[in-house]
């Protein structure tokens, strides 16, 4: 039992092999109550398999998975599932049923009310199509119905596999607002995503997967530190003074671009403050200073390209 540690989910040396192919290899992490975790990785990195193991749909070849203090593949605790919401990667429905019939069926299984269904259909913008067969739905509409069913019955634990694919920007925004609301009520969520910029602000922690291996995990700050990517600075100086400024800064400074009025510099995070002080010491010749920290995309591609120290 890990609940006394406040771990909602705990993976210990989890591996999954299909035949000779290793899909997940020796992955361990804990997820605390109320956290929003984002699983990042390319296609086939093992994100979906990890989720399926946490949901108890698939059993690990070795290692232990605990969700709410129990093995999800063995104990199919009813109580556990009442408060669980899952959106599969490519969600499939009973095609012959209408949108509202599908949602009503799932709501009955979770013990959610009909009003919940109507509200959710309204939230995801499917009210107008509620009486249509799901077979006639577009990909985006299916995704929206998928979200609606995942949100049934105020879930406390959410598993969302690529939740925003096929959603238009306004609906994406709405979707993240919905997630925020659930988080304020104490929900825990595990989201897998390609769209890093979207989830950047929401996630407490990231878990970066590559070919079944967990290659990095942590908060955004921790990932920046681990990646040790250079910070870029751009300074504007009095026209024509760039070469003299470069000289005064010294030869150890890394200058990536230079023209008549601007200099682009880069340095490691630890050297940033001394460099800024030296720039301000230059006096009136410097008109402007912009500091650009590395973007999440860069951090991600840094880990993905495998140049991990």
């Amino acid at each position, binding site marked *: 039992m890990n609940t006394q540690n406040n771990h909602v989910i705990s993976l210990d040396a989890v591996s999954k092999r299909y035949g000779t192919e290793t899909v997940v290899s020796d992955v361990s992490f804990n997820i605390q109550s109320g956290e929003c975790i984002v699983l990042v990785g390319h296609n086939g990195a093992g994100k979906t398999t990890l989720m399926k193991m946490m*949901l108890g749909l698939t059993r690990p070849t070795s290692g232990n998975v605990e969700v709410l203090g129990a093995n999800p593949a063995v104990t199919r605790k*009813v109580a556990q*599932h009442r408060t669980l919401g899952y959106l599969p990667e*490519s*969600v499939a429905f009973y095609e012959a049923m209408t949108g509202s019939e599908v949602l009503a069926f799932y709501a009955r299984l*979770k013990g959610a009310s009909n009003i919940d269904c109507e509200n959710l259909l309204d939230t995801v913008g499917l009210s107008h199509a509620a009486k249509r067969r799901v077979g006639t739905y577009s990909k985006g509409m299916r995704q929206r119905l998928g979200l609606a069913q995942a949100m049934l019955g105020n879930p406390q634990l959410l598993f969302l596999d690529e939740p925003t694919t096929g959603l238009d920007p306004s609906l994406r925004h709405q979707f993240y607002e919905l997630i925020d609301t659930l988080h304020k009520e104490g929900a825990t969520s595990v989201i897998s995503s390609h769209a890093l910029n979207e989830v950047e602000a929401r996630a407490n922690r990231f878990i970066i997967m590559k070919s079944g291996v967990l290659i990095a995990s942590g908060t955004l700050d921790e990932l920046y530190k681990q990646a040790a990517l250079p910070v870029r600075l751009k300074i504007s100086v009095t026209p024509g003074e760039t070469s003299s400024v470069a000289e005064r800064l010294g030869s150890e400074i890394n200058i990536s671009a230079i023209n008549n009025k601007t200099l682009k510099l880069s340095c490691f995070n630890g050297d940033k403050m001394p460099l800024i002080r030296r720039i301000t010491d230059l006096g009136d010749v410097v008109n402007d200073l912009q500091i650009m920290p590395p973007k999440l995309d860069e951090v991600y591609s840094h880990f993905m390209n495998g140049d991990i120290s």
Partner: protein
Amino acid sequence: MKMPGLKVLLILAMKELRDGLRNRWIAAAIIVLGTLALALSLLGSAPTGSVKASAMDISVISLASLSVYLIPLIALMLSFDALVGEFERGTMMLLLTYPVTRWQVIMGKFLGHVLILFIAIFSGYGGAMLIMTFVSGASMEGWQAYVSMMASSLALGAIFIALGYLVSVLVKERATAAGTAIGLWLVFVVLYDLLLFGVLLIDEDQLIGQQLFSALMLVSPTDTYRILNLSMFDGVSQAAGIAGVASEAGMNSVLLISVMLFWIVAPLAATLFVFQKREL
């Protein structure tokens, strides 16, 4: 708030039932079964002849002989897709993340499919029975024989629904399931009996005793169904010309019904066993 297991079963069963109503499956089955029952009974009421068999008894014989082919076919058509279809489309994965256990999924579907067959058989055959009663009258015993024929047809259907699930959980693709289901139907409905007759014809020295032959008959759910219907009621067995044969062979209705129950429970248990181990 706890959700009792029975309620979940009912939710799943009602979904299957609604599916059956929505795709006109139930309507089609009622029409097919009703038309055949009516045609057979109206035709069958003509040659009652010197045995003085009632129209109802004749109908039981002809309907039982027909149902042996038709009901397994209908049942397999209902069930072969039940699991593999949901695996293939991906709906099973989502369903199993709901507060539903795997045995509830199987039993809920089973309940729903049996309910569909119940409606089809009892309205199709039952409707024909009512018309027959108005046209040519019926005795209490005739009614009993007819109703038990309907009930045993439902049991026969349940057997093949369960067998269909077993096929459905074992194969990888829907097409394979369809093919295997047809094969299963051929074996149980046609080939096994042909084989038995063949053995009897070859076996001139009677190496196979009556006991063994009876046992071989009981292995097949369809033969069990036939014997049950043709021997359980005197009027029917006299009309069929096999009065006393079954009891001489040591078969009573308790044994026959037990065999049919076994054929329902065993494939369901096997299906559940395989399904429990399956990863999605």
